[in-house]
Protein backbone atom coordinates (compact mmCIF):
# COMPACT_ATOMS: atom_id res chain seq x y z
CA UNK A 1 0.00 0.00 0.00
CA UNK A 2 1.36 3.41 -0.95
CA UNK A 3 1.82 5.70 2.00
CA UNK A 4 3.23 9.15 1.39
CA UNK A 5 5.43 10.39 4.22
CA UNK A 6 3.86 13.84 4.33
CA UNK A 7 0.28 12.60 4.81
CA UNK A 8 -0.89 11.82 8.33
CA UNK A 9 -3.05 8.75 8.85
CA UNK A 10 -6.58 9.37 10.10
CA UNK A 11 -7.60 5.74 10.21
CA UNK A 12 -5.28 2.81 10.64
CA UNK A 13 -6.45 -0.77 10.73
CA UNK A 14 -3.97 -3.57 11.39
CA UNK A 15 -4.99 -7.20 11.21
CA UNK A 16 -8.51 -6.20 12.12
CA UNK A 17 -10.90 -9.06 12.92
CA UNK A 18 -14.58 -8.88 13.67
CA UNK A 19 -16.61 -11.99 14.38
CA UNK A 20 -20.35 -11.91 15.07
CA UNK A 21 -21.69 -14.75 17.14
CA UNK A 22 -25.02 -15.68 15.62
CA UNK A 23 -27.38 -18.56 16.20
CA UNK A 24 -25.89 -20.27 13.14
CA UNK A 25 -22.40 -20.06 14.61
CA UNK A 26 -19.71 -17.39 14.26
CA UNK A 27 -19.75 -15.15 11.18
CA UNK A 28 -16.45 -13.68 10.10
CA UNK A 29 -17.56 -10.17 9.15
CA UNK A 30 -13.99 -8.85 8.88
CA UNK A 31 -10.82 -10.89 8.51
CA UNK A 32 -7.24 -9.56 8.48
CA UNK A 33 -8.18 -6.08 7.36
CA UNK A 34 -5.17 -3.80 6.91
CA UNK A 35 -5.80 -0.28 5.71
CA UNK A 36 -4.48 3.24 6.17
CA UNK A 37 -6.63 6.23 5.34
CA UNK A 38 -4.82 9.57 5.19
CA UNK A 39 -6.09 13.01 5.90
CA UNK A 40 -8.02 14.42 3.00
CA UNK A 41 -8.56 11.05 1.31
CA UNK A 42 -11.87 10.14 -0.26
CA UNK A 43 -12.09 6.39 0.28
CA UNK A 44 -14.82 4.21 -1.15
CA UNK A 45 -15.60 0.74 0.12
CA UNK A 46 -17.17 -1.42 -2.55
CA UNK A 47 -18.24 -5.02 -2.59
CA UNK A 48 -21.27 -7.28 -2.58
CA UNK A 49 -23.59 -7.67 0.40
CA UNK A 50 -21.94 -9.34 3.36
CA UNK A 51 -18.40 -8.25 2.44
CA UNK A 52 -18.10 -6.25 5.64
CA UNK A 53 -17.91 -2.78 4.12
CA UNK A 54 -20.64 -1.36 6.34
CA UNK A 55 -19.30 -3.30 9.33
CA UNK A 56 -15.88 -1.74 8.79
CA UNK A 57 -17.38 1.75 8.61
CA UNK A 58 -19.39 1.06 11.76
CA UNK A 59 -16.26 -0.22 13.50
CA UNK A 60 -14.53 3.07 12.67
CA UNK A 61 -17.53 4.85 14.19
CA UNK A 62 -17.38 2.62 17.29
CA UNK A 63 -20.86 1.30 16.51
CA UNK A 64 -19.33 -2.20 16.28
CA UNK A 65 -16.49 -3.56 18.39
CA UNK A 66 -13.67 -5.47 16.64
CA UNK A 67 -12.76 -8.82 18.13
CA UNK A 68 -9.09 -8.68 17.16
CA UNK A 69 -6.30 -6.54 15.70
CA UNK A 70 -6.00 -2.79 16.14
CA UNK A 71 -8.00 0.10 14.80
CA UNK A 72 -7.21 3.73 15.48
CA UNK A 73 -9.04 6.91 14.51
CA UNK A 74 -6.94 10.08 14.80
CA UNK A 75 -4.49 7.99 16.82
CA UNK A 76 -7.17 7.10 19.39
CA UNK A 77 -9.38 4.09 19.88
CA UNK A 78 -12.63 4.42 17.89
CA UNK A 79 -14.64 4.82 21.09
CA UNK A 80 -12.44 7.67 22.33
CA UNK A 81 -12.73 9.26 18.92
CA UNK A 82 -16.52 8.90 19.10
CA UNK A 83 -16.62 10.56 22.49
CA UNK A 84 -14.49 13.41 21.10
CA UNK A 85 -17.01 13.68 18.23
CA UNK A 86 -14.33 12.99 15.62
CA UNK A 87 -16.70 12.07 12.82
CA UNK A 88 -20.05 12.79 11.24
CA UNK A 89 -22.03 9.74 10.12
CA UNK A 90 -24.53 9.66 7.27
CA UNK A 91 -26.81 6.63 7.21
CA UNK A 92 -28.50 5.02 4.22
CA UNK A 93 -31.81 6.59 5.24
CA UNK A 94 -31.85 10.29 6.00
CA UNK A 95 -33.39 9.58 9.42
CA UNK A 96 -34.55 13.14 9.96
CA UNK A 97 -36.85 13.69 12.93
CA UNK A 98 -40.32 14.30 11.49
CA UNK A 99 -41.17 16.63 14.38
CA UNK A 100 -38.25 18.93 13.69
CA UNK A 101 -37.80 21.33 10.80
CA UNK A 102 -34.76 20.90 8.57
CA UNK A 103 -32.95 23.58 10.59
CA UNK A 104 -34.10 21.90 13.79
CA UNK A 105 -32.72 18.58 12.58
CA UNK A 106 -29.35 20.12 11.79
CA UNK A 107 -29.34 21.71 15.24
CA UNK A 108 -29.81 18.31 16.92
CA UNK A 109 -26.09 17.47 17.20
CA UNK A 110 -25.30 21.11 17.97
CA UNK A 111 -27.75 21.14 20.90
CA UNK A 112 -26.29 17.90 22.25
CA UNK A 113 -22.77 19.26 21.90
CA UNK A 114 -23.69 22.46 23.67
CA UNK A 115 -23.23 25.13 21.03
CA UNK A 116 -24.77 28.52 21.81
CA UNK A 117 -28.02 29.52 20.11
CA UNK A 118 -26.29 32.14 17.96
CA UNK A 119 -23.58 29.71 16.94
CA UNK A 120 -26.24 27.08 16.09
CA UNK A 121 -28.05 29.48 13.77
CA UNK A 122 -24.82 30.55 12.14
CA UNK A 123 -23.75 26.95 11.53
CA UNK A 124 -27.16 25.89 10.23
CA UNK A 125 -27.05 28.69 7.67
CA UNK A 126 -23.52 27.72 6.66
CA UNK A 127 -24.16 23.98 6.15
CA UNK A 128 -27.51 24.57 4.43
CA UNK A 129 -25.66 26.72 1.92
CA UNK A 130 -23.00 24.02 1.60
CA UNK A 131 -25.57 21.39 0.56
CA UNK A 132 -27.56 23.94 -1.46
CA UNK A 133 -30.63 23.89 0.74
CA UNK A 134 -30.62 27.57 1.68
CA UNK A 135 -34.20 28.68 2.30
CA UNK A 136 -35.43 25.22 3.28
CA UNK A 137 -34.55 25.51 6.96
CA UNK A 138 -38.13 26.11 8.07
CA UNK A 139 -39.58 23.21 6.07
CA UNK A 140 -40.45 19.89 7.64
CA UNK A 141 -38.76 16.74 6.27
CA UNK A 142 -41.90 15.40 4.59
CA UNK A 143 -42.08 18.57 2.53
CA UNK A 144 -38.75 17.67 0.87
CA UNK A 145 -37.89 15.06 -1.77
CA UNK A 146 -35.80 12.02 -0.86
CA UNK A 147 -32.67 13.54 -2.38
CA UNK A 148 -33.14 16.81 -0.50
CA UNK A 149 -33.71 14.91 2.75
CA UNK A 150 -30.46 13.06 2.26
CA UNK A 151 -28.69 16.37 1.59
CA UNK A 152 -30.13 17.68 4.83
CA UNK A 153 -28.78 14.62 6.66
CA UNK A 154 -25.33 15.35 5.16
CA UNK A 155 -25.67 18.93 6.36
CA UNK A 156 -26.47 17.58 9.82
CA UNK A 157 -23.27 15.50 9.76
CA UNK A 158 -21.26 18.54 8.66
CA UNK A 159 -22.71 20.95 11.22
CA UNK A 160 -20.14 20.23 13.90
CA UNK A 161 -16.49 20.33 13.03
CA UNK A 162 -15.65 16.67 12.56
CA UNK A 163 -12.79 16.24 10.08
CA UNK A 164 -14.01 12.79 9.18
CA UNK A 165 -17.22 12.10 7.32
CA UNK A 166 -18.47 8.50 7.21
CA UNK A 167 -21.20 7.77 4.67
CA UNK A 168 -22.96 4.41 4.53
CA UNK A 169 -24.57 4.05 1.09
CA UNK A 170 -26.05 7.52 1.47
CA UNK A 171 -27.54 7.55 -2.03
CA UNK A 172 -28.45 3.87 -2.25
CA UNK A 173 -32.18 4.54 -2.10
CA UNK A 174 -32.19 7.35 -4.67
CA UNK A 175 -32.67 7.19 -8.41
CA UNK A 176 -29.77 7.44 -10.83
CA UNK A 177 -30.33 11.05 -11.89
CA UNK A 178 -30.56 12.40 -8.36
CA UNK A 179 -27.61 10.25 -7.44
CA UNK A 180 -25.42 11.74 -10.17
CA UNK A 181 -26.17 15.24 -8.97
CA UNK A 182 -25.52 14.41 -5.36
CA UNK A 183 -22.24 12.71 -6.30
CA UNK A 184 -21.14 15.91 -7.98
CA UNK A 185 -22.17 17.91 -4.93
CA UNK A 186 -20.35 15.60 -2.55
CA UNK A 187 -17.18 16.08 -4.57
CA UNK A 188 -17.59 19.86 -4.44
CA UNK A 189 -18.22 19.67 -0.75
CA UNK A 190 -15.12 17.55 -0.25
CA UNK A 191 -13.03 20.05 -2.22
CA UNK A 192 -14.37 22.99 -0.19
CA UNK A 193 -14.08 21.42 3.24
CA UNK A 194 -10.99 19.24 2.85
CA UNK A 195 -12.57 16.53 5.01
CA UNK A 196 -11.56 12.91 5.00
CA UNK A 197 -14.45 10.84 3.69
CA UNK A 198 -15.21 7.15 4.04
CA UNK A 199 -17.95 6.12 1.62
CA UNK A 200 -19.68 2.76 1.33
CA UNK A 201 -21.32 1.97 -2.00
CA UNK A 202 -22.63 -0.78 -4.26
CA UNK A 203 -22.02 1.18 -7.42
CA UNK A 204 -18.78 0.90 -9.40
CA UNK A 205 -19.19 4.22 -11.28
CA UNK A 206 -19.98 6.01 -8.02
CA UNK A 207 -16.89 4.58 -6.33
CA UNK A 208 -14.58 5.41 -9.24
CA UNK A 209 -16.02 8.87 -9.78
CA UNK A 210 -15.74 9.96 -6.17
CA UNK A 211 -12.67 8.30 -4.71
CA UNK A 212 -8.96 8.90 -4.39
CA UNK A 213 -8.75 5.39 -2.98
CA UNK A 214 -11.06 2.48 -3.78
CA UNK A 215 -11.15 -0.44 -1.38
CA UNK A 216 -12.57 -3.57 -3.01
CA UNK A 217 -13.96 -6.09 -0.55
CA UNK A 218 -15.35 -9.60 -0.80
CA UNK A 219 -17.51 -11.74 1.46
CA UNK A 220 -17.20 -14.93 3.51
CA UNK A 221 -15.05 -13.94 5.27
CA UNK A 222 -15.27 -10.17 4.78
CA UNK A 223 -11.86 -9.05 3.56
CA UNK A 224 -10.06 -6.55 1.37
CA UNK A 225 -9.12 -7.96 -2.04
CA UNK A 226 -7.75 -4.84 -3.70
CA UNK A 227 -6.89 -1.23 -2.87
CA UNK A 228 -6.76 1.07 -5.87
CA UNK A 229 -5.19 4.54 -5.64
CA UNK A 230 -7.01 6.50 -8.27
CA UNK A 231 -4.88 8.38 -10.79
CA UNK A 232 -7.79 10.70 -11.61
CA UNK A 233 -7.28 14.39 -10.77
CA UNK A 234 -9.08 15.81 -7.72
CA UNK A 235 -11.10 18.10 -9.94
CA UNK A 236 -13.62 15.85 -11.72
CA UNK A 237 -16.28 17.00 -14.13
CA UNK A 238 -19.10 14.50 -14.71
CA UNK A 239 -17.84 13.65 -18.21
CA UNK A 240 -14.62 12.29 -16.76
CA UNK A 241 -16.61 9.10 -16.59
CA UNK A 242 -16.16 8.66 -20.33
CA UNK A 243 -12.37 8.95 -20.14
CA UNK A 244 -10.08 6.00 -20.77
CA UNK A 245 -8.54 6.18 -17.28
CA UNK A 246 -11.96 6.08 -15.67
CA UNK A 247 -12.97 3.03 -17.65
CA UNK A 248 -9.68 1.32 -16.82
CA UNK A 249 -10.15 1.84 -13.08
CA UNK A 250 -13.78 0.70 -13.30
CA UNK A 251 -12.54 -2.41 -15.11
CA UNK A 252 -10.00 -3.12 -12.37
CA UNK A 253 -12.68 -2.74 -9.68
CA UNK A 254 -14.92 -5.13 -11.57
CA UNK A 255 -12.07 -7.63 -11.88
CA UNK A 256 -11.43 -7.33 -8.15
CA UNK A 257 -15.08 -7.96 -7.36
CA UNK A 258 -15.17 -10.94 -9.70
CA UNK A 259 -11.98 -12.43 -8.23
CA UNK A 260 -13.43 -12.14 -4.73
CA UNK A 261 -16.52 -13.95 -5.90
CA UNK A 262 -14.61 -16.61 -7.86
CA UNK A 263 -14.81 -19.28 -5.19
CA UNK A 264 -18.52 -19.84 -5.62
CA UNK A 265 -19.59 -18.59 -9.00
Amino acid at each position, binding site marked *: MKDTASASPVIEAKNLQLVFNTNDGPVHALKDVNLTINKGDFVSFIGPSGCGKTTFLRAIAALETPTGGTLTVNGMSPDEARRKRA*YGYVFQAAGLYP*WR*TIAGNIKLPLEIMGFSKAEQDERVARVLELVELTGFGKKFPWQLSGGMQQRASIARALAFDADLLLMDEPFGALDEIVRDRLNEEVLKLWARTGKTIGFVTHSIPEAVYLSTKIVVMSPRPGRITDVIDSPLPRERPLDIRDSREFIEIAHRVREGLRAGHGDHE
Partner: protein
Amino acid sequence: MSGGAMKHVLPVLTVVAAIIALWYAAAVGLNRAWVYDQAERAGVAPASGMALIAETWSQERPVLPAPHQVAVELVKTTFGMAPSSKRSLVYHGWVTLSATLLGFAIGTGLGILLAVGILHNRAMDMSVMPWAIASQTIPILAIAPMIIVVLNSVGLQGLVPKAIISAYLSFFPVVVGMVKGLRSPDQMQLDLLKTYNASNTEAFWKLRLPASMPYLFTSLKVGMAASLVGAIVGELPTGAVAGLGARLLSGSYYGQTVQIWAALFAAAIVAAGMVMLIGVMERRTLKRMGMAR
Protein backbone atom coordinates in the same frame (compact mmCIF):
# COMPACT_ATOMS: atom_id res chain seq x y z
CA MET B 1 -72.64 22.09 4.15
CA SER B 2 -70.31 21.10 1.35
CA GLY B 3 -70.77 17.93 -0.66
CA GLY B 4 -67.65 16.43 0.94
CA ALA B 5 -68.97 16.87 4.48
CA MET B 6 -72.35 15.48 3.39
CA LYS B 7 -70.57 12.37 2.18
CA HIS B 8 -69.24 11.77 5.69
CA VAL B 9 -72.41 12.68 7.53
CA LEU B 10 -74.86 10.72 5.42
CA PRO B 11 -73.66 7.20 6.30
CA VAL B 12 -73.56 8.13 9.99
CA LEU B 13 -77.09 9.50 9.88
CA THR B 14 -78.28 6.40 8.05
CA VAL B 15 -76.87 4.12 10.72
CA VAL B 16 -78.31 6.29 13.52
CA ALA B 17 -81.74 6.27 11.84
CA ALA B 18 -81.59 2.49 11.47
CA ILE B 19 -80.68 2.03 15.14
CA ILE B 20 -83.52 4.31 16.27
CA ALA B 21 -86.02 2.50 14.07
CA LEU B 22 -84.87 -0.87 15.41
CA TRP B 23 -85.05 0.51 18.95
CA TYR B 24 -88.67 1.66 18.53
CA ALA B 25 -89.60 -1.72 17.08
CA ALA B 26 -87.91 -3.52 19.98
CA ALA B 27 -89.73 -1.27 22.46
CA VAL B 28 -93.06 -2.36 20.98
CA GLY B 29 -92.09 -6.02 21.20
CA LEU B 30 -90.71 -5.88 24.74
CA ASN B 31 -93.31 -3.60 26.34
CA ARG B 32 -96.38 -5.20 24.74
CA ALA B 33 -96.72 -7.89 27.42
CA TRP B 34 -97.28 -5.24 30.11
CA VAL B 35 -100.08 -3.64 28.07
CA TYR B 36 -101.85 -7.00 27.69
CA ASP B 37 -101.32 -7.69 31.36
CA GLN B 38 -102.87 -4.39 32.43
CA ALA B 39 -105.84 -4.92 30.11
CA GLU B 40 -106.45 -8.38 31.44
CA ARG B 41 -106.41 -7.16 35.06
CA ALA B 42 -108.82 -4.36 34.18
CA GLY B 43 -110.99 -6.89 32.37
CA VAL B 44 -111.04 -4.96 29.13
CA ALA B 45 -109.89 -5.81 25.62
CA PRO B 46 -106.24 -4.80 25.09
CA ALA B 47 -105.48 -1.98 22.71
CA SER B 48 -104.37 -2.91 19.24
CA GLY B 49 -102.80 -1.28 16.21
CA MET B 50 -101.65 2.30 16.65
CA ALA B 51 -103.10 2.53 20.16
CA LEU B 52 -101.03 -0.47 21.27
CA ILE B 53 -97.88 1.01 19.80
CA ALA B 54 -98.55 4.34 21.47
CA GLU B 55 -98.99 2.60 24.83
CA THR B 56 -95.75 0.63 24.51
CA TRP B 57 -93.88 3.89 23.85
CA SER B 58 -95.26 5.86 26.79
CA GLN B 59 -95.10 3.60 29.86
CA GLU B 60 -93.67 4.93 33.09
CA ARG B 61 -91.49 1.90 33.77
CA PRO B 62 -91.08 0.12 30.45
CA VAL B 63 -88.78 -2.84 29.95
CA LEU B 64 -87.17 -0.86 27.16
CA PRO B 65 -87.93 2.88 27.12
CA ALA B 66 -88.49 4.39 23.69
CA PRO B 67 -85.77 6.74 22.44
CA HIS B 68 -87.90 9.85 22.85
CA GLN B 69 -88.63 8.94 26.51
CA VAL B 70 -84.91 8.73 27.20
CA ALA B 71 -84.30 11.95 25.30
CA VAL B 72 -87.02 13.79 27.24
CA GLU B 73 -85.67 12.51 30.57
CA LEU B 74 -82.14 13.44 29.54
CA VAL B 75 -83.13 16.98 28.55
CA LYS B 76 -85.39 17.44 31.58
CA THR B 77 -82.79 16.34 34.13
CA THR B 78 -79.98 18.17 32.37
CA PHE B 79 -81.48 21.53 31.49
CA GLY B 80 -84.77 21.53 33.41
CA MET B 81 -83.25 21.61 36.88
CA ALA B 82 -80.82 23.67 38.89
CA PRO B 83 -77.37 22.07 38.54
CA SER B 84 -77.19 21.83 42.34
CA SER B 85 -80.33 19.70 42.54
CA LYS B 86 -79.87 16.06 43.53
CA ARG B 87 -82.05 15.13 40.58
CA SER B 88 -79.99 17.04 38.05
CA LEU B 89 -77.84 15.00 35.67
CA VAL B 90 -75.42 17.92 35.54
CA TYR B 91 -74.86 17.51 39.28
CA HIS B 92 -74.36 13.76 39.04
CA GLY B 93 -72.36 14.05 35.84
CA TRP B 94 -69.96 16.50 37.46
CA VAL B 95 -69.50 14.26 40.51
CA THR B 96 -68.51 11.41 38.21
CA LEU B 97 -66.48 13.59 35.84
CA SER B 98 -64.39 15.13 38.62
CA ALA B 99 -63.45 11.66 39.91
CA THR B 100 -62.80 10.57 36.32
CA LEU B 101 -60.48 13.48 35.63
CA LEU B 102 -58.53 13.08 38.87
CA GLY B 103 -58.23 9.34 38.28
CA PHE B 104 -57.22 9.92 34.67
CA ALA B 105 -54.50 12.34 35.76
CA ILE B 106 -53.18 9.91 38.38
CA GLY B 107 -53.40 6.96 35.98
CA THR B 108 -51.70 8.82 33.14
CA GLY B 109 -48.91 10.06 35.40
CA LEU B 110 -48.39 6.62 36.89
CA GLY B 111 -48.51 5.01 33.45
CA ILE B 112 -45.87 7.33 32.04
CA LEU B 113 -43.62 6.89 35.08
CA LEU B 114 -43.88 3.11 34.84
CA ALA B 115 -43.15 3.23 31.11
CA VAL B 116 -40.03 5.34 31.71
CA GLY B 117 -38.98 2.92 34.45
CA ILE B 118 -39.52 -0.08 32.17
CA LEU B 119 -37.45 1.64 29.50
CA HIS B 120 -34.45 2.48 31.66
CA ASN B 121 -34.42 -0.24 34.27
CA ARG B 122 -33.90 -3.87 33.36
CA ALA B 123 -35.40 -5.19 36.57
CA MET B 124 -38.58 -3.16 35.97
CA ASP B 125 -38.63 -4.24 32.34
CA MET B 126 -38.72 -7.87 33.49
CA SER B 127 -41.14 -7.45 36.38
CA VAL B 128 -43.66 -4.66 35.88
CA MET B 129 -45.51 -5.75 32.77
CA PRO B 130 -46.74 -9.15 34.06
CA TRP B 131 -48.07 -7.42 37.18
CA ALA B 132 -49.71 -4.70 35.15
CA ILE B 133 -51.42 -7.32 33.01
CA ALA B 134 -52.43 -9.34 36.08
CA SER B 135 -53.92 -6.21 37.65
CA GLN B 136 -56.27 -5.88 34.69
CA THR B 137 -57.47 -9.47 34.81
CA ILE B 138 -59.01 -8.93 38.26
CA PRO B 139 -62.66 -7.92 37.80
CA ILE B 140 -62.88 -4.28 38.80
CA LEU B 141 -66.31 -4.91 40.31
CA ALA B 142 -64.68 -7.28 42.81
CA ILE B 143 -61.81 -5.05 43.79
CA ALA B 144 -63.63 -1.71 43.87
CA PRO B 145 -65.48 -2.35 47.18
CA MET B 146 -62.17 -3.45 48.76
CA ILE B 147 -60.50 -0.21 47.72
CA ILE B 148 -63.45 1.80 49.07
CA VAL B 149 -63.43 -0.07 52.40
CA VAL B 150 -59.66 0.11 52.87
CA LEU B 151 -59.45 3.80 52.02
CA ASN B 152 -62.48 4.59 54.16
CA SER B 153 -60.73 3.02 57.15
CA VAL B 154 -57.86 5.46 56.72
CA GLY B 155 -60.27 8.36 56.45
CA LEU B 156 -60.44 8.77 52.69
CA GLN B 157 -63.86 8.90 51.12
CA GLY B 158 -65.77 10.59 48.35
CA LEU B 159 -63.68 11.72 45.40
CA VAL B 160 -60.30 10.10 46.09
CA PRO B 161 -61.30 6.41 46.33
CA LYS B 162 -63.25 6.70 43.10
CA ALA B 163 -60.31 8.44 41.44
CA ILE B 164 -58.02 5.63 42.55
CA ILE B 165 -60.32 3.02 41.01
CA SER B 166 -60.28 5.16 37.85
CA ALA B 167 -56.50 5.32 37.93
CA TYR B 168 -56.35 1.54 38.44
CA LEU B 169 -58.08 1.08 35.10
CA SER B 170 -56.53 3.94 33.15
CA PHE B 171 -52.82 3.49 33.90
CA PHE B 172 -52.70 0.26 31.92
CA PRO B 173 -53.30 1.51 28.37
CA VAL B 174 -50.88 4.37 29.06
CA VAL B 175 -48.10 2.00 30.18
CA VAL B 176 -48.57 -0.27 27.20
CA GLY B 177 -48.79 2.61 24.70
CA MET B 178 -45.89 4.58 26.15
CA VAL B 179 -43.53 1.60 26.36
CA LYS B 180 -44.26 0.94 22.69
CA GLY B 181 -43.92 4.62 21.84
CA LEU B 182 -40.69 5.18 23.75
CA ARG B 183 -39.24 2.12 22.03
CA SER B 184 -40.47 3.12 18.58
CA PRO B 185 -37.24 4.84 17.37
CA ASP B 186 -35.30 2.37 15.22
CA GLN B 187 -31.71 1.26 15.67
CA MET B 188 -30.46 3.73 13.10
CA GLN B 189 -31.88 6.67 15.04
CA LEU B 190 -30.29 5.40 18.25
CA ASP B 191 -26.97 4.86 16.44
CA LEU B 192 -27.13 8.41 15.15
CA LEU B 193 -27.40 9.75 18.70
CA LYS B 194 -24.56 7.46 19.72
CA THR B 195 -22.35 9.07 17.08
CA TYR B 196 -23.05 12.41 18.80
CA ASN B 197 -22.09 10.81 22.11
CA ALA B 198 -25.54 11.75 23.43
CA SER B 199 -26.54 10.60 26.92
CA ASN B 200 -29.60 8.45 27.67
CA THR B 201 -31.30 11.53 29.08
CA GLU B 202 -30.76 13.44 25.85
CA ALA B 203 -31.95 10.47 23.84
CA PHE B 204 -35.09 10.42 25.98
CA TRP B 205 -36.00 14.08 25.64
CA LYS B 206 -34.89 14.63 22.08
CA LEU B 207 -35.84 11.34 20.44
CA ARG B 208 -37.89 8.89 22.50
CA LEU B 209 -40.41 11.25 24.05
CA PRO B 210 -41.32 13.16 20.85
CA ALA B 211 -41.46 9.86 18.95
CA SER B 212 -43.92 8.48 21.52
CA MET B 213 -46.48 11.30 21.18
CA PRO B 214 -48.81 9.60 18.67
CA TYR B 215 -48.81 6.48 20.88
CA LEU B 216 -49.50 8.58 23.98
CA PHE B 217 -52.61 10.20 22.55
CA THR B 218 -54.05 6.88 21.41
CA SER B 219 -53.47 5.53 24.93
CA LEU B 220 -55.02 8.61 26.50
CA LYS B 221 -58.24 8.08 24.57
CA VAL B 222 -58.53 4.49 25.77
CA GLY B 223 -57.45 5.55 29.27
CA MET B 224 -60.09 8.27 29.45
CA ALA B 225 -62.89 5.84 28.61
CA ALA B 226 -61.51 3.37 31.18
CA SER B 227 -61.33 6.15 33.78
CA LEU B 228 -65.01 6.91 33.38
CA VAL B 229 -65.91 3.24 33.78
CA GLY B 230 -63.74 3.16 36.91
CA ALA B 231 -65.42 6.21 38.43
CA ILE B 232 -68.91 4.81 37.76
CA VAL B 233 -68.00 1.41 39.21
CA GLY B 234 -66.48 3.20 42.19
CA GLU B 235 -69.84 4.86 42.87
CA LEU B 236 -71.78 1.63 43.05
CA PRO B 237 -70.56 0.22 46.42
CA THR B 238 -70.85 3.57 48.24
CA GLY B 239 -74.61 3.22 48.48
CA ALA B 240 -75.66 5.37 45.58
CA VAL B 241 -75.02 8.80 47.07
CA ALA B 242 -74.12 10.81 44.02
CA GLY B 243 -72.78 10.42 40.52
CA LEU B 244 -73.88 8.71 37.33
CA GLY B 245 -73.16 5.33 38.94
CA ALA B 246 -75.54 6.26 41.75
CA ARG B 247 -78.20 7.21 39.21
CA LEU B 248 -77.79 3.80 37.57
CA LEU B 249 -78.03 2.02 40.90
CA SER B 250 -80.99 3.95 42.31
CA GLY B 251 -82.73 3.60 38.97
CA SER B 252 -82.40 -0.17 39.17
CA TYR B 253 -83.55 -0.19 42.84
CA TYR B 254 -86.80 1.53 41.92
CA GLY B 255 -87.27 0.09 38.44
CA GLN B 256 -86.76 3.52 36.88
CA THR B 257 -85.62 2.24 33.52
CA VAL B 258 -85.94 5.62 31.87
CA GLN B 259 -83.61 7.08 34.49
CA ILE B 260 -81.09 4.27 33.94
CA TRP B 261 -81.05 4.78 30.22
CA ALA B 262 -80.73 8.54 30.64
CA ALA B 263 -77.76 8.05 32.97
CA LEU B 264 -76.19 5.60 30.52
CA PHE B 265 -76.51 8.11 27.73
CA ALA B 266 -75.15 10.88 29.94
CA ALA B 267 -72.09 8.70 30.64
CA ALA B 268 -71.66 7.95 26.94
CA ILE B 269 -71.95 11.64 26.07
CA VAL B 270 -69.40 12.61 28.74
CA ALA B 271 -67.00 9.91 27.51
CA ALA B 272 -67.42 10.92 23.88
CA GLY B 273 -66.85 14.57 24.80
CA MET B 274 -63.67 13.79 26.72
CA VAL B 275 -62.29 11.54 23.99
CA MET B 276 -63.06 14.21 21.39
CA LEU B 277 -61.26 16.77 23.54
CA ILE B 278 -58.19 14.55 23.60
CA GLY B 279 -58.55 14.16 19.83
CA VAL B 280 -58.47 17.95 19.43
CA MET B 281 -55.38 18.17 21.65
CA GLU B 282 -53.79 15.38 19.62
CA ARG B 283 -54.38 17.14 16.32
CA ARG B 284 -53.08 20.44 17.68
CA THR B 285 -50.00 18.93 19.26
CA LEU B 286 -49.06 16.80 16.27
CA LYS B 287 -49.68 19.72 13.95
CA ARG B 288 -47.44 21.97 15.99
CA MET B 289 -44.83 19.20 16.00
CA GLY B 290 -45.07 18.99 12.22
CA MET B 291 -46.18 15.37 12.40
CA ALA B 292 -49.66 15.91 10.96
CA ARG B 293 -49.77 16.49 7.24
